């Protein structure tokens, strides 16, 4: 019964080795999908390349459906998963700032690391920028603290917040994602192609 490391099936000492292996796979997939190119990433916002959207939603769907099946078949306990905590205002404001940073810089942290690995200097500068951002946040923590810790809703899932059946939600989410994929293809066909 998973998760394996917290349940002691795999000794804790292995966790760092597994972390590196998972990281290698993560980096490989991101790079091979083209996430090391900021112009490809930014394409989603200008309608000339929807790779980010497709990879992102496909990954979320596969993981979501897979987790629910594993939970159903008893390999995994959904209840013992780490659920990202919900700090309402922190999530909204932080997300909005990240959105601006995304368009301005063309990367997100994971993809910038991939780009650093293949020698993109702009990505290196971006990573330095992230570190400065973290530094600023930490130095001005007193200022950000109310936002950081405010409106804490607990480690809730959509089921807790809206009381919807998670299976139905996943089903609807799948259909929405497929419609979005289809739409994104249509938009891209109408737009001028950009090569990078």
């Amino acid at each position: 019964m998973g998760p394996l490391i917290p349940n002691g099936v795999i000794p804790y000492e292995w966790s760092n080795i597994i972390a590196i292996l998972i990281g290698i796979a993560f980096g490989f997939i991101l790079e091979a999908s083209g996430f090391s190119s900021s112009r490809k990433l930014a394409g989603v916002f200008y309608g000339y390349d929807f790779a980010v959207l497709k990879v992102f939603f496909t990954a979320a769907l596969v993981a979501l459906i897979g987790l629910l099946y594993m939970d159903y078949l008893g390999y995994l306990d959904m209840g013992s998963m780490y659920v990202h905590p919900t700090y309402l205002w922190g999530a909204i404001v932080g997300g909005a700032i990240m959105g601006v940073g995304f368009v301005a810089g063309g990367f997100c942290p994971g993809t910038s690391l991939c780009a650093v690995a293949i020698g993109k200097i702009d990505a290196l500068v971006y990573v330095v920028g992230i570190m400065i951002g973290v530094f600023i946040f930490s130095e001005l923590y007193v200022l950000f603290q109310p936002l950081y810790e405010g409106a804490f809703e607990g480690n809730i899932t959509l089921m807790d917040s809206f009381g919807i059946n998670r299976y139905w939600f996943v089903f609807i989410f799948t259909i929405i994602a497929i419609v979005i994929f289809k739409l994104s293809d249509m938009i891209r066909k109408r737009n001028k192609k950009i090569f990078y």
Partner: protein
Amino acid sequence: MVNRKLVKVLTFRYTILALILIVLAGGLVLLPKYTKHEGINPEELLSNAISPERYISTDALADKIVNQDPSNILIDIREEIEFTKYSLPNAINIPLKNLLDEDSIPYLNQNQFNVVLFSNDNFYADQAWILCNRLGYKNIRVLKGGLNLWFTTIINPLKPDQNESAEEFTLYSTRKAASMFFGVKYPEQVKVDAPVIKKKAPKKVFTIEKKKKAPAEGGC
């Protein structure tokens, strides 16, 4: 020919993939739902049930009470009327029907004390034991034979015959001594004051908060 067919299929590849995804997601909706049981699994319950640890004999319990062993909580699961008529010293009354109440959980779900359940015989105590095990409570035991056996062995022990073994006699004398502790007077010792049992305040139970799993640090 095969190639052309393959090409024809491949032009629909995204449609096919989308359909697979929808079928998988729809499968989740249509799967028969069952409620997952919480608590321990059946194998563990069985191994607890056949373990000798499950029961405590009346003699062992009497010994513990006489020695004022502080590690025990006695829980009487009979009705309140019966409890007020007679019960073991310092026992706490949790009638079987109230076993799952909020108030009874601190007594049952803890790791510091040995909980001894008893009723008139084994029957109700055993059922309570199974419920408690099912909920994953630790250190729960049942008084073997219940209060009935308690009476016939401790309170009113049967005097062994002349020709029985020496062990029987030692057992009898300990039982007799124990019964005197519990306030039974024997004709040959009328003059001796039976030890006065001080009504102790019910044991305070310090419940241990179940350790929550250390929250994993945020993803990034």
